[in-house]
């Protein structure tokens, strides 16, 4: 890749559990050996069904969880190996926007104290500046600074999500994880928030990792995207290409499952339905994890776990068919 990789994730693993006093309990392999890169100023989309580990991947990536193994290079430094104290300056540069605008804002704090909270934690900014910064941050997300003294319940879902974004922006981060930021909002409000995220990116040169299960929206906002299935990446490719010609059988099924808002196209579309359900990460199938639902399953799929291969320039697939 010609662009310099801003974030480079290598063989990242996050297992949960495994404790137990007398007998070792099984691990939940939430994220199992994923590698990808995000370039500066780009939006990387991460999609997959619920329980596939996309949120865990993102949270491990920014060290909200300690990775089991693997490395995460953020701007040249491996943040997976830093201790809490060394990590502090990086926390400032990485922020997160959460899914539920109703649950992610403390109902007993005013908007001002919600947005200023990261500043009091990071202490790099003098207290006298706080109010100005909060006002500036609110203006950036299209809210009037006069809202500062209000409480979250006085706002609608879309406005609350804007407050959440203002909070993420206040430390002047360069990388933001957006974990399903629009799935709790109405369609007409979704478009507003997505457009705002994009103009903020242009203004401030932000890098996003955008997680969602609404594939159309992810395709719309991100330049490159990765598809996850039971803790592993099955396909990484530029977004346009991923939609035009998906290669992995899972991606094909996923794309075909998106409802098309066009009745004639919908009727003409050939049906590819992925039967069954996502397997449990406690006990994932041997070999390729998609084989239990795959119509093109071969003998080799049961034994050997496929690795990501570059099939076309910048288009990686983990499947024995390629």
């Amino acid at each position, binding site marked *: 890749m010609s662009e310099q990789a801003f974030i480079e994730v290598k063989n990242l693993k996050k297992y949960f559990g495994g404790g137990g006093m007398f007998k070792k309990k099984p691990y939940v392999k939430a994220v199992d050996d994923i590698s990808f890169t995000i370039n500066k100023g780009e939006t990387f989309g991460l999609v997959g069904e619920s329980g596939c580990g996309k949120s865990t991947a993102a949270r491990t990536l920014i060290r909200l969880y300690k990775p089991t193994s693997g490395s995460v290079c953020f701007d040249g430094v491996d943040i997976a190996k830093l201790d809490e104290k060394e990590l502090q300056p990086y926390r400032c540069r990485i922020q997160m926007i959460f899914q539920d605008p109703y649950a992610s804002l403390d109902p007993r704090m005013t908007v001002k104290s919600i947005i200023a909270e990261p500043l009091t934690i990071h202490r790099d900014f003098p207290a006298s500046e706080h109010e100005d910064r909060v006002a500036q941050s609110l203006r950036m997300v299209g809210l009037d600074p006069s809202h500062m003294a209000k409480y979250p319940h006085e706002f609608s879902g879309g406005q609350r999500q804007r407050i959440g974004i203002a909070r993420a922006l206040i430390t002047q981060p360069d990388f933001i994880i957006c974990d399903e930021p629009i799935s709790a909002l*109405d369609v007409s409000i979704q478009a*507003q928030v997505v457009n705002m995220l994009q103009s903020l990116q242009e203004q401030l040169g932000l890098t996003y990792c955008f997680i969602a299960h609404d594939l159309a929206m992810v*395709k719309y906002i991100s330049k490159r995207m990765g598809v996850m299935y039971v803790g592993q990446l099955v396909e990484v490719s530029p977004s346009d290409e991923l939609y035009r010609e998906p290669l992995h059988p899972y991606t094909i099924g996923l794309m075909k499952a998106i*409802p098309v*808002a*066009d009745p*004639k196209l919908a009727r003409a579309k050939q049906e590819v339905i992925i039967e069954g*359900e*996502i397997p449990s990460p406690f006990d994932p199938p041997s070999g390729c994890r998609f084989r239990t639902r795959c119509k093109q399953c071969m003998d080799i799929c049961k034994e050997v776990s496929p690795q990501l291969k570059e099939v076309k320039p910048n288009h990686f697939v983990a499947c024995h068919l390629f």
Partner: protein
Amino acid sequence: MTVDKLLEVNNLRTSFFTFSGEVQAVRDVSFSLNRGEIIGVVGESGSGKSVTFLSVTRLLSESGKIVGGNILFEGEDVTQMPTLKLRKLRNNQIGMVFQEPMTSLNPTLRVGTQIIERIKAFNKRISNREASKRAEQLLEMVRIPEARKHLNSYPYEMSGGMRQRVMFAMAIACNPKLLIADEPTTALDVTIQKQILKLIGSLRDEINTSIILITHDLGVVAETCERVVVMYGGMIMEEGLVDEIFYETAHQYTVGLKKSIPDVNKVGGTRLFSISGSPPSLIDPPKGCPFTARCDKAMRVCVNHCPPYFQLSPTHRSMCWLLDPEMPSNLAVESVQ
């Protein structure tokens, strides 16, 4: 259309009486539903879509009241029905599926027990053995593998998609004439959504029920429904066959909704269209068209006068002043904003 009408709603008005005033959730809604038809109801939160259908089954919470209009189910007015008869109607004729498959099942009871309870509600004389046989058959109908085994499962042992299937099994237990599905796929993944939508289509064919699918996803509507009702601010903005709504869109709100969905087939780069502002308050609803404040083409007349329905075809109607044949065309561009 004067074909066989199953449900007819005339000038329905439903309000909630709260401390801060009367919330006029449904304001003068009329529509009808034919037998064996799948109709989609689209609108954002607070548009009155769920309340309309809670009114149909009279399942409104205590503060909610039907303040006007009538609801005819097979010619009988639901709004005037005595409690006992109403219960019979809900038991034997109407099935409902709700959005949250996690919260609508009892977590302490086995799935089988809950389905049998439902079966016994309308058939008191059925034996236990027969009821459990019927429950197994129902689970097979909603395509749950190993139906017999799953009768003994608890809801927490099942995934979201499976739980939603169980909800469908309970809803169709009485072979209902009407099935109301309120956002049945919103909490599910696309692959599972696809399976459930396919199931809805095949249920219609198998038990010949009419289905009302309430959703906010135009894609879901395009794939599943025959007719669409678009709601906003407690009113029906536009109603028509699915092709009419998508290809001959007449209302500005529907136009906006359609444009705010990203097109997966288009190569990126363009900015997404967004409807600015947010929906109107229903405590003090606007006098004119409810969409005026967010409409690009709003005119002076829109602010104070609510437009009537303009019939565009026998099946297609829409309330927007732009459709008035007497409207001078040069006025169309004049904006009040």
